[in-house]
């Protein structure tokens, strides 16, 4: 680190024009004052003042540009018959034909239907669980006990999907604990891990185990933000525990709930890739093929790059439209949504 006297030596000359006089006694004016100050001045003086901030931002922006935005351009191969030996520049253009193939590809539609069924199923059977769990956790009064339980239920969120699927296999697989117990008691063993009929239950159970606990964190924060005087006033007026839950707690959670619902709806075409990638072989394509695994197996593995890029583009654009629609609906219902109307 630089020596402390470095501070005094390099006197700043870039303070810029003096800010407008402060309005005393109003909180929040500091930031606004800073903004007003910041926008004054010529480009050069602003650069002199802000070059260090720019320099700090460059690496992150560079990485995002390279790994998020450059690949977007790579989507042009969806309109080509791309071959890696020829390169993007010289691969022949084929217009929309990849998309036409896709529209008549039954396996693509099967994957889409699987994806949407899983999303819908989890919307009903997974999505409300973090709220219930958060309300339950919030009612634990002893702070240390509560912290302990929170610590335990958050934890599986940090395990990899490989690990989660492995744990489930050890519990419910053909050689797992459940089958073992059943066999010990004279029943025939079960193998839930390879049964396509119950696959949707299995993946939902895995998701619940991994993420329902972590999902409570945002609802717990929203619960903590509810004014306790509301509860007191209601109780004094004779509202029962359940009425307080209905009239104070749930309305207090509504904005967060709607926000997460929008995000989930906008993300309807993503059900998580690794979870399905890992289990597709065991239960088979019919039940476990989702859009992301479709892209991987149909294209990356077979080298049909352009076809896969077309599928990815369709999925990306559809996802974008979904998120914009969901947000629009939220605005219509008077909620804030993910971005503000401006």
């Amino acid at each position: 680190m630089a020596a402390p006297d470095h501070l005094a030596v390099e006197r700043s000359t870039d303070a810029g024009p003096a800010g407008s006089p402060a309005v005393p006694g109003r909180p929040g004016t500091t930031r606004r004052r800073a903004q007003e100050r910041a926008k004054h001045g010529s480009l050069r003086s602003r650069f002199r003042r802000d070059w260090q901030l720019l320099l700090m931002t460059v690496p992150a922006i560079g990485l995002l540009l390279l790994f998020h935005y450059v690949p977007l351009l790579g989507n042009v191969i969806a309109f080509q018959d791309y071959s890696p030996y020829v390169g993007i520049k010289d691969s022949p253009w084929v217009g929309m034909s990849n998309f036409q193939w896709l529209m008549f590809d039954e396996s693509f539609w099967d994957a889409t239907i699987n994806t949407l069924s899983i999303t819908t199923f989890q919307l009903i059977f997974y999505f409300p669980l973090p709220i219930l769990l958060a309300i339950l956790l919030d009612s634990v009064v002893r702070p240390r006990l509560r912290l302990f339980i929170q610590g335990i239920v958050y934890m599986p969120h940090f395990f990899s999907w490989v690990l989660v699927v492995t744990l489930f296999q050890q519990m419910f697989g053909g050689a797992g604990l459940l089958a073992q117990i059943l066999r010990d008691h004279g029943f025939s063993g079960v193998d839930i891990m390879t049964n396509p009929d119950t696959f949707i239950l299995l993946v939902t159970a895995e998701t619940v185990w991994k993420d329902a606990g972590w999902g409570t964190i945002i609802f717990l924060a929203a619960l903590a933000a509810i004014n306790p005087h509301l509860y007191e006033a209601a109780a004094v007026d004779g509202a029962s525990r359940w009425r307080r839950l209905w009239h104070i707690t749930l309305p207090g959670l509504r904005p967060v709930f709607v926000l997460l619902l929008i995000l989930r709806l906008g993300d309807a075409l993503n059900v998580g890739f690794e979870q399905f990638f890992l289990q597709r072989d065991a239960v088979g394509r019919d039940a476990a093929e989702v859009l992301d695994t479709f892209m991987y197996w149909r294209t990356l593995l077979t080298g049909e790059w352009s076809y896969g890029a077309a599928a990815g583009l369709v999925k990306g654009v559809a996802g974008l439209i979904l998120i914009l629609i969901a947000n629009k609906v939220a605005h219509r219902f008077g909620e804030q949504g993910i971005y503000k109307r401006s």
Partner: protein
Amino acid sequence: MTMPAWAERPTRLGASVKGLVLALIVAAVLFPIYMVVLTSLSTQEAVSKAGGLVTVPGELSFGAYEQLFAGGVVTRSIAVSLGVTVVGTLLSLSVTVLAAYGLSRPGSLLHRPMLFLVLLTFLFGPGMIPSYLLVSSLGLIDSYWALILPTAVTAFNLVVMRAFFMNIPEEVTDSARIDGASEFRILWRIVLPMSKGVTAVIGLFYAVGYWNAFFNATLYLNDNTKWPLQVVLRQFVLQGQSMFVGQTGDTAIGGHALPPSLAIQMAIVTLALIPVLVIYPFVQKHFTKGVIIGAVKG
């Protein structure tokens, strides 16, 4: 016990139902982990007596771990995972902290377009196939950097961190600025020491991401000597129990006698768990403070 005066006393039935439900939830998380760790520490006799996973502790042994650490696939994959996690987390955290601070002052030069660029990545991913083509055209196939660079910056983490920095009152940094301190110095000496919690949480997010990285490794690494632990876990534990026995015969584990194969498998699972279990308690207390404030405001 801090029950407000107006609250009803919990009924005995209500309290016991609640306690039971919470106990079941905690058990559902801990029990599988307990069984896996116990089985990995059991002798062959204990495992075959249990007929599978061990639930009641019998004879214990470190045999499985000794075999695994004798050298071979698993040892190497742990080294790979640790290396990628350490290097990746340091890189990600540095880049994210710098950019979060660089974007924390609205009105600075290019602030709006750069922030927009970051936020826009929330709306769409780069796509699997174009990403693969990019990584391969950068010559990163079979390079460990392919596991680090594409996921090095996460917009979510950046935005959470930035929201936290923006909450630091400007008066705190202004005096240093008037004294002529550079922005780097202000960040290092003033802002970061005030942001230990959020830095720890974001660091954990990145570290866990690298440690758990699985798909990028299968996608970008063809050379199986470079596999990280998660890929090894999938190959040897999830995909085929018989395949593992084949692997133990050759150099994979070293020429030792075969220990109980289930114990070895569970030892691999345990090794994949341990770093998370060790680091997690230290970071957990910062979760609500560090993350949620940022997330709600961001």
